[in-house]
């Protein structure tokens, strides 16, 4: 999609989200998300950016991974990410499940798995767990996933994390400008200003890494995007929470829902620290830093 098409698709996604409240799967259905994905994988860029911005949850990640693995995305086909054994809410209703374990995957009937709806840290996220994920060997014929499959998933999650960081910063900024203490907005105090500035620095680097991932989609740029977006989102969450102070600690304020989502998204397909450590390990082993990010 070019910039204009992406902007138009984003607008229709926001409108669909508004019509359907928190259940973004319905909204996605309405805008023809799976057809858009089949047509052009960069449709995911808009979907995950809107999810992050508006703190929505959906099963779009299943579709991205299925599409990248060469399976037709369908509401009847869910994805289970091992070893965490976690998936989206689609796991509860699909007929078959693609179980991903590292670079191996196998498709099994859903009713062969024991499903539990997760409350946990992010009860609104629709996360679903499979109790006792079976070993791949016991599941029979598997398939080898290319690096590109995991990369597609990581880039999608990175896109959402970067948008979530931007949204948390905006919540904190709005509060800092409105909240009066000592006779002036707290945004007038340098300690607050510098926390918000550091949040923007982190957000901008996440957005740049995500942009680079979409422009030059390789396993390395996707992994970097997820690592940077994951760390950045945590940085922004820390500063934003401190600026929001008591207000942000209440359940009425939306901040906590973004924080919960960040912490869970970071767990999927490798945490920021796991991914960057693995890249460090590779650099040490091969005595070389990958040449990437051409102008």
């Amino acid at each position, binding site marked *: 999609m070019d910039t204009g098409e992406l902007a138009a698709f984003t607008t229709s996604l926001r409108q669909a989200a508004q019509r359907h409240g928190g259940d973004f799967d319905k909204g996605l259905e309405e805008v023809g998300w799976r057809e858009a994905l089949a047509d052009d994988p960069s449709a995911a860029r808009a979907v995950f950016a809107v999810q992050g911005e508006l703190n929505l949850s959906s099963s779009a990640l299943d579709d991205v991974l299925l599409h990248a693995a060469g399976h037709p995305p369908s509401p009847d086909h869910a994805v289970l990410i091992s070893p965490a054994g976690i998936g989206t809410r689609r796991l509860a209703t699909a007929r078959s499940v693609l179980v991903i374990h590292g670079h191996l995957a196998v498709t099994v009937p859903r009713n062969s798995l024991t499903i539990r709806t997760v409350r946990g840290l992010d009860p609104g996220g629709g996360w679903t767990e499979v109790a006792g994920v079976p070993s791949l060997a016991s599941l029979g014929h598997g398939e080898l996933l290319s690096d590109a499959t995991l990369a597609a998933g990581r880039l999608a999650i990175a896109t959402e994390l970067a948008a979530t960081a931007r949204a948390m910063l905006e919540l904190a900024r709005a509060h800092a400008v409105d909240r009066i203490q000592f006779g002036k907005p707290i945004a007038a105090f340098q300690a607050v200003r*510098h926390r918000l500035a550091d949040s923007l620095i982190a957000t901008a680097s996440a957005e740049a890494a995500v942009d680079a991932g979409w422009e030059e989609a390789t396993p390395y740029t996707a992994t970097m995007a997820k690592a940077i977006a994951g760390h950045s989102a945590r940085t922004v969450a820390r500063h934003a929470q401190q600026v929001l102070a008591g207000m942000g600690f209440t359940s009425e304020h939306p901040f906590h829902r973004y924080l919960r989502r960040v912490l869970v998204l970071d767990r999927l397909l490798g945490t920021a620290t796991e991914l960057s450590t693995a890249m460090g390990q590779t650099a040490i082993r091969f005595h070389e830093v990958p040449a990437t990010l051409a*102008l």
Partner: protein
Amino acid sequence: MKLAEFRPALDAWLTEHAGELTPTEPGLDAAMAHLSTVKRLAYDAGWMRWGWPERVGGLGGSPLLRGYLGEALTARGFVEPGIYSLTEVLAPTMIDFAAPELAAEMVPKLLRGDETWCQGFSEPSTGSNLASLTCRAVATDTGWRVNGQKVWTSLAQYAQRCVLLTRTGPPESANSTDKHRGITALFVDMDSPGIMVRPIETMHGAPEFCEVFFDDVDVPVSRTLGAEGQGWAVAMDLLPYERSTALWHRGAFLHKRLDDLVREAPDGRLSARDVGAVLEQIYAFRARSRTTLHRLDAGEQLGAETSLDKALLGLAEQSLFDLVEATLSDEVAFGDSPTDAEWRSEFLYSRAATIYGGSAEIQRNIIAKRLLDLGAEA
């Protein structure tokens, strides 16, 4: 010329001429002489002219070509990006503000390596508060007479010219609320009578910064950059260049030095988590800088948002050299081989990455006010 053609052609040329382009001697004098050689060779072969307008001796084309040239020279260790960067910083200012004939005469000398230029901005009493500068220029029949002092002027001892900020408004305007208005930029010959340059010894061991003293220095009116009182606009025009192509080159340098570290560090000394964290930090900075260069290429006006790039450089550079010091601690502390001395010098220099060119705190003030629109500070 498109970047896609420029890149392989330049790469081939650099490989072919690697012998002449590789520096052989240590020290700043040798590095400056070698920089002139590299620029001369690259200019004569055309590479150094791409990305600059034809009216100043360039061959036209995108600034991305300049971005790649500096990156390629840095990545191969042919130039040190700190001393190379003044070209990227000062040539655009001349192109934007000098009289066309002056720019046409002078810019090719800078690009070809015939000359070194310096940037006379900071003063002893104006560090972060640049606009309160007091180096005075008074109008004469033929131009300006300059009196005052500059400090932290990079490479002034090698420079033939200086882009100098002076106060031409009344002296008290330096402390007023419209201190930005009484500033005028001049292009000064460094061999003018009355200029004295004194290099500053610094903790990292290379005397690349200087104090510059001006004692009744006459500057012709034709050497005014922009109009009288427009000096702040000149400074603001220059800073985004300092934070675009020049930072991209610095990113190439950090990438190369991390690569050198993982090649050179003895087995077992590096932690995967630490290397990964630095790799990530450098990548984040470069990704941001890349975005900025593409905006420059699209003809966008760069401004305060380049403070984000500068802030990310500070984080990346210090995280890299913290890792260097932690990994090669004996070498940095006790080693006296040229390699050890280089790591040590770069580690010490990295401490300044959050100070020079607008401190980390000033960048955050700018980000808060201009990019986040947080209103006035208490």
